[in-house]
């Protein structure tokens, strides 16, 4: 399950660090192990312009967050949430799904993790934080509009 791609992202996390501006910030934790991610989402209209984060945790949770930022930054909210859907479905497939590499790119490396139920939560930590922060950011921009 520990593919080279995962280790590369873990050792050099993409888009790491907290940045301005942002519309929403959330902190998600994995209570069994203390994995934590604080994540910010910046939107411009319906487009994800930035996802910045700071986290501590295992290689799976940290690499997965890094891969997620590569995938969602620059996409529309609808596209990004569809990718969240697909990634979540893959992680809950117990490794039986044939993931679409054209769409999920580096995230397909996590198919091996899907065979370990205890670790699925690690892989989803950053993605869940993204979905939560995006929902909050949309609510904020709706209020301002």
């Amino acid at each position, binding site marked *: *399950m520990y593919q080279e791609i995962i280790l590369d992202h873990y050792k050099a996390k993409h888009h790491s660090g907290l940045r301005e501006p942002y519309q929403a910030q959330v902190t998600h934790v994995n209570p069994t192990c203390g994995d934590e991610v604080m994540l910010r989402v910046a939107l411009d209209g319906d487009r994800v312009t930035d996802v910045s984060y700071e986290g501590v945790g*295992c*290689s799976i949770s940290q690499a997965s967050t890094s891969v997620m930022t590569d995938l969602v930054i620059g996409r529309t909210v609808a596209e990004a949430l569809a990718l969240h859907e697909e990634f979540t479905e893959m992680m809950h497939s117990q490794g039986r799904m044939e993931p679409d590499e054209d769409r999920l790119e580096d995230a397909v490396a996590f198919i091996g993790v899907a065979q370990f139920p205890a670790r699925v939560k690690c892989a989803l930590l950053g993605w869940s934080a993204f979905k939560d922060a995006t929902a909050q950011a949309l609510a904020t921009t709706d209020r301002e509009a």
Partner: protein
Amino acid sequence: MPDSTDRSVGASPRLVEPVETPFDVERIRADFPILTRRVGEWPLVYLDSANTSQKPRAVVDAIATHYLEHNANVARAMHTLGGEATEAFEGARNKVANFIGAVPEEVVFTKNASEALNLAAHTLGARLQPGDEIVISVLEHHSNIVPWQLLAERTGAKLRWFDITADGRLDLEAAETDGLINERTRIVSVAWVSNVLGTINPVRQIAGLAHRVGATVVVDASQGVPHLPTDVGVLGADLLAFTGHKMLGPTGVGLLWGSYDLLANLPPFLGGGEMIEIVRMTGSTFAKPPHRFEAGTPPIAQAVGLGAAVDYLSAIGMDAIAAREHQLAEYLLGRLGAVEGVRILGPTEAIDRGAAVSFTLATSDGMEIHPHDVMQFLDARGVAVRGGHHCARPLHDRLGVTASSRASAYLYTTEAEIDAFGDALDYVRNFFGGVR
């Protein structure tokens, strides 16, 4: 028994008297069928006994026999089977009482140690007032933290904490300087043995300090009773909580021991069947201890299984088990200490220390390898350890680490297993360090 040999000649000093027969770990292992299984292609190396112990066949058989031949509810069923079940259940209470130097009326069955500690917090809490103080320690398991936090919130009492020293022992000096235990202290609740650091705490000494100011002493003995000879009279606690599944028994049964006079003065915890004396629409009166604290159908088969576990441990002897675990703790500390990049949390010498050892692991370039990754790699080689904060987050915060890995040994653990674990750690470290 006549003994003409002088044991002091040529013998290394021992903490515990040598047992008559050598500790036959292979014979013990033969009683635990699970230890022969494989994980993938690797033989299982089970080093997670502080989490839950494995079960000997005798325990599983006792539970099966109970269900297949004697099953009925206890106390309320008046027929033959009811009598047999009640006898088996109360017989288990007797065995547990003997095992810890108590009388059966002082032994309350709960569902686990957490419930036992919640029972203690709720019933002792009935007497608390704002301004009273409860003292716990930073090395506690969450089950000996959260019930007291909730109690402090309910009553306005203040929660105070023992700190630890650099080598992972309770800092009694700082406690004295800070007046931690004082005339406002009503309850002191500490672990006998830390589930993370392995530290054996000076419970008797702390009990002495607490009793001097009239406080009640609660001891979380979940990691103590399974590993050390226990005599509640010597420990000095007023209430002692522990659990069956960490001492070869089944899950679903925990215990609270309390001195009878204290139990008799405590209000009920949960209300329901079998804990009452008379129930009228205008109110109820309650049974005497221990049944006052056992509302509803208790964990009958689980208690029977625990009774068999106590018999098993007693036949080997807790002195012999403690002496063997001391050897294992030394071996484990030595083997872990030899792995580069390992930082052992807690005492690095096997003095006043159990055989559960937590550690962090870093690569040669100083990158910390997360315990989840360590655990996963070890599991891929059949080695079962725990990775995470071990239900002791405040302690990990205090130590400045987010999480740790823990290897824990028990009476069936071998040196060869500890070697396999050490080899697997080298493999993890090389993998994450780029040596592939």
